[in-house]
């Protein structure tokens, strides 16, 4: 979906469909992201969203049973009793022996979320500039960004911070989810005939999570076969081009994924 901002009617048609929930799901996601950075569209949204809300008020009026309010308040109180659920867990890894030396700390997501949202905005800016035949790839990119935002906004999300020599980064994950977002900076340049391979460790077994050849910062959404919470650690090794079935070198960075 492309919004023609100089086409007044088309602009209103798109935002109208958005506030009524009448866009295709993938277009809804695109518009949601687009609205975060487009003043023209947000002005139209501000005009039309309240009208749609009034439409909702035309329904026959019924009161929810009192149990709904009680359940809501109980649920909130339950959340508040475990405030740490909203606090991320930070882990720092120093240089040392293989798959060892884990030090735990704390961190919050509030500095991470704006960065990820900025990434979404930038990605969508790129979308507007590309041609139609690239849309499928771009939609996949947007889906990846949405995965990142979902990770960042989930109350169960945790962050594992890692540092080893000049390499540092963080892994953002929801233990019950199969996806995690990994950002690593400071990786040494790697020859063309080599790749970095990311491993997830469970019961001592190392499962390949991704093979990458980053130029600069490594930023990737990992899709694990099992929920991330079932893995005890994550590490990165240097492997022959295309990756290896099992690590063939010592990890250049490693982090525990358990408290």
């Amino acid at each position, binding site marked *: 979906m492309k919004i023609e901002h100089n086409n007044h009617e088309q602009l209103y048609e798109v935002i109208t*469909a958005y506030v*009524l929930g009448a866009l*295709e799901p993938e277009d809804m996601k695109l518009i949601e992201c687009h609205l975060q950075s487009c003043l023209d569209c947000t002005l139209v949204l*501000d005009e039309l969203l*309240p009208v749609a809300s009034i*439409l*909702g008020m035309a329904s026959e*009026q*019924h009161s929810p049973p009192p149990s709904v309010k009680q359940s809501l308040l109980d649920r*909130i109180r339950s959340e508040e009793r475990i405030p740490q659920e909203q606090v991320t867990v930070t882990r720092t890894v120093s240089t040392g022996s293989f798959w060892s030396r884990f030090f735990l700390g704390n961190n919050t997501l509030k500095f991470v979320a704006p960065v990820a949202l900025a990434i979404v905005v930038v990605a969508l800016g790129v979308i507007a500039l590309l041609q139609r035949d690239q849309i499928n790839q771009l939609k996949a990119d947007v889906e990846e960004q949405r995965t990142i935002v979902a990770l960042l906004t989930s109350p169960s999300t945790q962050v594992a911070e890692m540092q080893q020599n000049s390499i540092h980064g963080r892994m953002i994950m929801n233990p019950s989810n199969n996806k995690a977002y990994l950002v690593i900076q400071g990786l040494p340049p790697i020859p063309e005939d080599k790749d970095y391979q990311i491993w997830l460790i469970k019961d001592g077994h190392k499962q390949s999570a991704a093979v990458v050849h980053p130029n600069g910062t490594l930023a990737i959404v990992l899709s694990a076969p099992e929920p991330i919470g079932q893995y005890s650690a994550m590490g990165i090794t240097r492997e022959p081009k295309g990756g290896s079935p099992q690590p063939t070198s010592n990890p250049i960075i490693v982090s525990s994924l358990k408290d």
Partner: protein
Amino acid sequence: MSNQPLDDQAIMERLSRGDLSAMEALYDCYSRAVYSMILRIVQDQQVAEELTQETFFRAWKQAKSFSNDRGKCASWLMSIAHNIAIDEIRRRKARPVSVRSEDSSNYLMNLPDSSLEDPDEIIMSGVRRSIVLEALRELPENQRRVLEMSYFGGLTQSEIADKVGEPLGTIKTRMRLALQHLRKNLIEKGIKPEQL
């Protein structure tokens, strides 16, 4: 239930500080409208109750992201509720199956007016439901129908085009005109949507 308009900014600030009494005030003011709209969409009382709770829970979690410059609390809350309800019926890959949704244009047309003396007639933020219904009834039937099919039926523009057998472009235009006309009708009747 309280029908008194809330001070949006104050209530959201209290919510973002984790003030549970602010959530109670928000719920007391808006739960009826939220629940009614969700019930209309999902057509299942138990699911509507669950989604109403989910709506307010998300409001609690997202209070810090609420911007008073970007609209009023009522619109924000109804938008959350609508998204949740539409997601639910799409997730179930089911549409409302009542006679109402099959004869969508008649749903809004046949809604009973509330008595002007009935305190519940004021839905939220001082808006009278009878005036909203009147503004809706003044829309051309085909415009009212696309609003109903999309907002309450959860149908996309393409699905509506298929269902009514008209070109997609026609549906897009009709939908745009419908919402613009509704806005104009409401303003003429003294309701300023942007104040919600």
